């Protein structure tokens, strides 16, 4: 058993967390729940990046740096995404995405 010193462990974990995020994004009706699922998916990708950086010698420092950049971009995404959700909520009075049908009518 070498869980802690095996790249595959972390990649599988990352895949599972990404799958959970995918399910949440596709299945939830609340817009903020969907944003939280997107955060889960970004974190899953970050875990894979850090794992590659930790186990592959030629990627040693690059993994951590790219993970930090992904975090900054995720923070920007969360800011703008939540601002958009709040702006829509102010107009439509509901956080449920399937009631945002103004462009379908």
């Amino acid at each position: 058993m070498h869980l802690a010193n095996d790249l595959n462990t972390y990649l599988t974990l990352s895949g599972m967390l990404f799958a959970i995020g995918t399910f949440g994004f596709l299945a939830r009706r609340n817009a903020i729940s969907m944003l939280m699922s997107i955060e889960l998916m970004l974190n899953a990708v970050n875990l894979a990046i850090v794992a590659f950086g930790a186990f592959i010698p030629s990627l040693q420092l690059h993994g951590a740096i790219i993970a930090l950049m992904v975090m900054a971009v995720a923070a920007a995404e969360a800011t703008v995404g939540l601002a958009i959700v709040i702006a829509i909520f102010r107009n439509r009075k509901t956080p449920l995405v399937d009631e945002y049908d103004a462009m379908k009518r």
Partner: protein
Amino acid sequence: MRAWLYLIAAAVAGAIITTPAIIVLIMMGGSFDDALVAGLATLMLAAGIAVVSMRDIIRCGLAMIVCFLALAGLYVTLGAPLVAAAQVIVYIGAISVLILFAIMLTQEKAGSARLTFQTQAAPAAIAAIVIAVLVAVAAYGTNWGAAPVHIVAAAKLIAQELFKDYVLVLEAVGVLLLAAVIGGVFLAKREKDA
């Protein structure tokens, strides 16, 4: 009376979450590192499932904090303490609080399960399971040429690399964050008298 129920529920949840770690440690002959990884992984996945499946959205947000905390622990076991610290500061300190505030601004009464999930929830679950299996198969089927023991990325080396080779990316991220701040304020500000 209610308090005892909560305590018992918390004890049961803790037992469930620590079970894989104990199994790895005792039955499968793993080291303490392996047990730690197994425990953190279980906590992360359980909290992640709670995020996407609970009905009360405030609890989803709190479960997300637990999920990010377990992920920070995994970063530490991976030898990336700087990334773990950034995870705690950025995700738990900033993004989670932002999301909790947004939840409180758009709060509604928690509806029935039919209101919580789309009608496409079952196909979405199948798609998620397929993705997880595909990633696991691809990970185990590829020879990554990975080192048998992981490397600790020291903060000093990361900083030197960050301000030498990655300085353009760093500046670009700074501009992106500025744009995000301005865009967020512009989008969320109240209309004057419309």
